[in-house]
């Protein structure tokens, strides 16, 4: 099973593991990203996730296809959640199964790193003090690596 989705409900991580299960696989890897209680030293009590949904679906699906061809498995399921999430709730889950563990780890890592670089999703952090702020690229305040994302997109366009 190979699929990806942007969802607006809780992610059932056990269901994702079940979807990639196959007797041809000897390794199953599950990555779950959850809402953390602190960011940049500030106390967080929730997060709103929004997206350019159609592009996010397309980009996520491209990443899954890339991982499939690079690492040699079609057992990949990814879900990213949108909406308001509380502490500890899963915002993203990536299940990868492969005959061997090495490639399963690599494929799973590839997907989360590319997702964080390319998929147009944004998060508005809610702080315990009542304020809210848009989180810049991977929790830090650094500038976006726009050129890198574009070069990536062009590389993929090559035959």
């Amino acid at each position: 099973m190979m699929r990806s989705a942007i969802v607006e409900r809780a992610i059932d991580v056990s269901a994702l593991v079940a979807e990639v299960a196959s007797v041809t696989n000897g390794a199953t890897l599950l990555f779950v990203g959850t809402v953390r209680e602190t960011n940049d030293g500030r106390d967080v009590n929730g997060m709103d996730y929004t997206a350019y949904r159609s592009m996010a679906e397309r980009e996520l699906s491209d990443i899954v296809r890339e991982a499939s061809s690079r690492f040699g498995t079609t057992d990949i399921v990814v879900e990213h959640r949108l909406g308001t999430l509380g502490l500890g709730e899963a915002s993203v889950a990536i299940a990868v199964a492969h005959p061997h563990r090495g490639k399963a780890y690599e494929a799973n890592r590839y997907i989360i790193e590319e997702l964080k670089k390319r998929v147009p999703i944004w998060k508005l952090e809610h702080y315990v003090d009542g304020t809210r702020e848009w989180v810049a690229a991977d929790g830090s305040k650094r500038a976006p690596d726009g050129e890198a994302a574009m070069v990536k997109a062009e590389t993929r366009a090559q035959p």
Partner: protein
Amino acid sequence: MTITVLLFASYAEKLGASSIPLELGQGATVGDVLTSLQRLPGASRLPTEPLIAVNERYARRDQVLAAGDEVAIIPPVAGG
């Protein structure tokens, strides 16, 4: 020709809109969209070189646009 500019997250807040129709001449590029946007109130708060997508694909400044294109100004992504 008319194209649609899409704004998201912090950029939508800065310009007070999530979608803006723009009238441009034939042969206009992504760069021309950015120049036109600079005239709008709040646009000075956008970065000068934001990430752009045309019809859901990341695009360069020199990409030529067609009528009906959807040009998205993409804030730093923060999924995961």
